[in-house]
């Protein structure tokens, strides 16, 4: 090590050391202004028991090192999460929820009993029933029903844990996606990935704790708020990594600045900042010095982590990846790389699953089949790849949309449509999970013979959130953040850990 490097290292460790001493007063103020406020502040940490929980978890927020790795509240089975969100909501009736009775009812008027008191996004009047546009068979030892649309996924059927009766209360994309990821259909709450990075920090300080990857040409309907930090400090929001342009915004040096020059300039900035620290004695300066060091480390490690081109050929074949393009397959492979490197929460959004049937571009016959094809191989590869690396047991994989699709053919504005398509459906749909300490080859919940609503084992987005947090080592009832005078939870006042699918 050169003298300069040694000096830098000393500076850096000094900065970190100082920073740790300097837990700033933000929400989690432990000391107080004088004796007077001390008791009131104590109660900030003690929490609001009216929500029925016992001891609240106070996670220390250290603004100087907000993403420092922290242990969970109890040993979790999953170390990280990969959430594959099919934005637009794929049809459960063409993929997992096999309804032979619906075939018989195809083309008949929907019974009034299914329509009374219900509202739909686009169905008007009396729609026709629509039989599944898919061939189903039971797969694997577990006998899970999976259609031919997913010819690869059927080979790993015995790894999956199905939730067949998920019910949400939102039938529009943006609110439903928000509910799924933030626990509220309105904007403004932190996403589950933000909660996870707030609670656990990152295992790899050179990479963000919470990474978001999108494919399908569009961001999800609810925009960046689905990976936002809400009222948590903004540092916990998801960092969007992109396949075009900078993998992380501003991670690459501008043209004209080489790696070495950037290093030299950060050294110069930090040398001047160190002078400023001598002048002002403001510990925040030390924190800034360490953030610039960290920025440089990220510049070194993120492009490398985001580069899939050096993966072996068999991996590319397995996933169906094409380096340099924006695709779900590339993102799936990236997700594995990131989790391997210690990223806590990887959120994928794949846009284009909104099969209304108003045109070929959103039809079940054409567009939907293409979407299935674009994710099937890579999703399966992700599970197998994680497994072969021994990572599946400690990585929780979640696959699903924001709601389901109606058993009825859509009839937008009361018209007959040229293509097969289904409207948004909040009553019942399928989500599957795998790895992360769940039962393999299991299925929980059941819908009625036409797949309209749950008849057993109904779960809500809150239950899914509670289960994800549980696998990460958090009790969703005690994992809170103080804001606007109350302790907020991801699951608000609801949620139940779905113990039925936990191994």
């Amino acid at each position: 090590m050169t003298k300069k490097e040694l000096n830098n290292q000393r500076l850096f460790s000094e900065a970190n050391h100082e920073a740790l001493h300097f837990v700033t007063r933000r929400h989690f103020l432990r000391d107080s202004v004088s004796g007077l406020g001390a008791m009131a502040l104590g109660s900030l940490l003690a929490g609001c028991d009216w929500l029925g929980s016992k001891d609240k978890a106070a996670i220390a927020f250290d603004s100087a090192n907000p993403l420092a790795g922290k242990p969970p509240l109890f040993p979790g089975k999953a170390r990280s999460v990969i959430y594959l969100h099919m934005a637009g909501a794929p049809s459960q009736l063409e993929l997992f929820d096999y309804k032979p009775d619906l075939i018989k009812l195809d083309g008949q008027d929907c019974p009034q009993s299914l329509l009374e008191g219900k509202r739909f996004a686009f169905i008007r009047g009396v729609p026709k029933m629509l039989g599944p546009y898919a061939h189903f068979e039971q797969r694997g030892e577990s006998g899970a029903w999976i259609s031919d649309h997913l010819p690869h996924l059927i080979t790993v059927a015995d790894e999956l844990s199905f939730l067949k009766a998920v019910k949400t209360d939102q039938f529009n994309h943006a609110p439903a996606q928000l509910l799924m990821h933030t626990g509220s259909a309105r904007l403004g709450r932190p996403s589950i990935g933000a909660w996870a990075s707030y609670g656990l920090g990152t295992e790899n300080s050179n990479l963000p704790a919470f990474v978001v990857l999108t494919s399908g040409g569009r961001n999800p309907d609810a925009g960046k708020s689905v990976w936002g930090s809400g009222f948590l400090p903004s540092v916990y929001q998801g960092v969007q990594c992109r396949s075009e342009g900078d993998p992380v915004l501003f991670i690459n040096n501008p043209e004209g600045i080489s790696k070495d020059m950037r290093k030299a300039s950060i050294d110069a900035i930090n040398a001047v900042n160190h002078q400023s620290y001598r002048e002002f004695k403001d510990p925040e300066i030390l924190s800034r010095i360490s953030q610039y060091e960290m920025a440089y480390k990220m510049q070194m490690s993120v492009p490398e982590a985001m580069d899939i081109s050096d993966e072996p050929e068999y991996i590319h074949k397995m996933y169906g990846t094409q380096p340099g393009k924006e695709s779900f397959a590339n993102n799936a492979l990236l997700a594995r790389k990131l989790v391997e490197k210690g990223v806590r929460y990887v959120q994928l959004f794949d846009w284009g699953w909104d099969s209304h049937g108003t045109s070929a571009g959103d039809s079940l016959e054409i567009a939907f089949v293409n979407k299935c094809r674009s994710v099937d191989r890579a999703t399966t590869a992700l599970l197998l790849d994680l497994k072969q690396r021994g990572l599946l047991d400690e990585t929780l994989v979640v696959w699903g949309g924001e709601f389901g699709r109606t058993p009825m053919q859509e009839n937008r504005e009361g018209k007959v449509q040229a293509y097969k398509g289904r409207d948004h459906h909040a009553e019942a749909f399928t989500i599957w999970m795998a790895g992360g300490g769940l039962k393999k080859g299991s299925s929980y919940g059941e819908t009625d013979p036409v797949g309209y609503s749950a008849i057993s084992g109904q779960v809500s987005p809150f239950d899914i959130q509670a289960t994800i947090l549980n696998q990460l080592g958090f009790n969703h009832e005690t994992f809170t953040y103080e804001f606007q005078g109350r302790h907020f939870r991801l699951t608000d006042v609801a949620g139940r850990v779905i113990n039925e699918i936990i191994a």
Partner: protein
Amino acid sequence: MKIKLNKKLLLVSAILLTALIVTTGLIGHKKVDYNTEVKPLFNKKCISCHGGVKKESGFSLLFRSEALGKTESGKPAIIPGDPDGSEMIKRLTTNDPEDRMPYKHDPLSSKEIDMLKQWIKEGAQWGEHWAYVKIKPVEVPDVSGGFFGGGDDGKWVKNEVDHFIYAKLKEEGLTPSPEADKATLARRLSLDITGLPPTPEIVKKFENDNRPDAYERLADSLLASPQYGERWTAMWLDLARYADSKGYEKDGYRSIWRYRDWLIKAFNEDMPYDRFLTEQLAGDLLPNATDDQLIATAFSRNSMNNDEGGTDNEEFRTSEVIDRINTTWETLLGTTFACVQCHSHPYDPFKHEEYYKFMAFFNNTRDEDVPGDYPVLREFNQEDQAKFDSLKKWLLENASKEETHEMMSFVKTWQPAIYSYHADNFINCQLSEVYLALRQDASCRLPAVPLNNREQLTYRYTSGIPDGKWEIHVDSVNGLKIAATIIPPSKGWTIHTINIIPVDGVHDLYFTYTNPHAEKGSQNNLATFDWFNFSSAFPGKGKPGYDTAFAHYKYLMAANAKQQTPIMMENPKEMFRPTHLFVRGSWLNKGPEEQPDVPHSLNPLPANAPKNRLGLAMWLTGKDNPLTARTMVNRIWEQLMGQGIAETLEDLGTQGIAPTHQQLLDWLSWKFMYEDKWSIKKLVKRIVMSATYRQTSVASDESLKKDPFNKFYARGPRVRLSAEQIRDQALAVSGLLSYKMFGKSVMPYQPNGIWRSPYDGNVWEKSTGEDQYRRAIYTYWKRTSPYPTMLSFDGTAREVCLARRIRTNTPLQALATLNDNAFLEMARHLATRMEKEGGEDVAMQISKGYEMTMFHPISKEKLEALQKLYNQAVAAFKKDKEKACEMINNGNDKTDAGKASLILVANAMLNLDEFITKN
């Protein structure tokens, strides 16, 4: 305490006083204080089961009346004067685990129980929380003599603010710091007051000005500059959750920048804060409201609109109303009111039903979450405005005042309109998104239309086919026909007016539509409607000029508006919307109807206040309101000093962090209302004139050790600049900044691929010319995809209001200022200035650059570090000429390693801690 005695006497009285305190302490006669001793204990140990949410066993500690009342066991829990007879004390001390409180938690300590006993013995008096008590005059602590000798104490003090600060510093054993040097002071003052660094000329002038009031002159000139309004608007936009898009899925464009401009002007004119709030909350209800006053009401229209297909307009209208209530409380009243939506406040004295009484003030406006963002204020171009003026003149001369108002208001706002999505009973027609679309042989109903004295129907529609026959019947499809017309094809949306046969009362209207050119059973939409307006007939029939005036009227209502700004407008009486309590906060579960009122634990509505938003504004800006002035003063203090006197700007309630200097907060608030007549400029000046503000931010070992977070202000503020200031400052020092004010939001450089909203064709189109270099408040703010550097520096998406930005320090911030091309461009221009003004010598150029950014000479060590960087860069750029070219990026391939290196140094300068920090 104002004691003016000679030192000897003082010493004697001090000893006596100490003795007194000691003895009373021993005898134990110090009265228990509810606010600081009892309430915090209740909040911590009891109130979660016995408070606003749960009232276990019928016992609640939130209000005294509840706490002393009967419980389910029949025994009163608290009997004032009789601790041993009080059930509460028995339950705290019993050994039976089923009875002992807190239930299934650790018992209270004997000290705590003794304290509660004594409190009950003393009468169990409830204290009032400081923030809910009316603001009274506060005596300024006298620091001229000092208690224990030392006559110099007063020297540091510059104005009354310092008296409060100094008294506290003394208590804490801290010494204040000396004044910062003039250059630092000028930069601090300029960044704080205008959001921009000073010009070198301003600094030089200040440094050379040896008059005793030089600092005050500088402060005054900055307060008078037009950039003052822009800086404080930047703060207010977070509170108003201002954005240029509507939010949610499509997140389409919303033209509401007129409101931003209104704010800038209001701040610059120093509009008194009470009027400032009144116009924003209720400008539309002021007598003869001006266009500006209507635009001010856009404050409340910054709530999000959901245009996603199939969403329930009423659900999202309701959520907007709720957002307005929460915004009003959190930003203007420093109170977390949102929890009262579902249940009574767990800690503070607000009852569940009071939320909905408050909602009743806001629940009667014409906006209904429709894509048109109605109601809007329509602004005409010059030519049309002339027509408008002449129409108005004619009406004033030929019609009644009421008639004139109805007609002119309609032309300006298209209100009151019934939006077409209210239609139902569809046969051969449907809602297309939220628009009523009629097909061949259609019929449908428009329910409950008030028709008294209505003789004219105006409607906005679009149709692609001629000769459609549209009829309107009363009460049934076969009922009395009150109108029939042929709908001609239109070029896009257009507006027509027809006469209708007057009918008394409120009726369901039935529409029928047939078209000779359409096939039977065709599913094509033939005529689509946006809204309907039923009005009195255009007045003045038969009077001279009637035809021209009526023609102008019809022309103007359909004319293209230059600008349409969403505003607040109250429902007319016959469109009144009752307000119900939502049981457990669910808008679908409606409880009893509620009338407008304010929470009873605060000051009552003024006697002369109408029960609408105007009355609400009168209450809020009345001097009896304990929260309005405190909230604003606390916020201004935070902006200038880095943290609030009460740190939780959003919560001055019992769960907020207690103020460090409550007396000072009250004193400033009192001055703000009574003496300064709500002048924000005077308030700002009062604070910046203090010695407290002017201190150097260099931390002494003593102050760092005793007060690491500078809560007692023994040194000057030192905080990172805001996202807006960081951009504006870099633009200013590089010489790129455009001082152009006002207008439509602009799109400066942003990397590709940031905007990708579904179903929205809008793209980020980089502005041209000086619009690329405008101040940050003019940058287009898209809610689902805000400007990236604003986000990394702690800006938010502005989905809901934000009362306080929490500063973070992250590597992503470093990456933004290092690598964002926008910042690199600024570095290029800064380097050019360094070259031009620094002369031939590199060291001089770097020194000059440092002075241009920091306004004082560079130290030897800093210069060395930057010069070293320069030398390293020159060596590298000489080797790699292509890189040098890219760095300079001036379109020709002449390489200049020196220039490229200087740019790298400038880029480093824009990243220095002291540069992005207010020192």
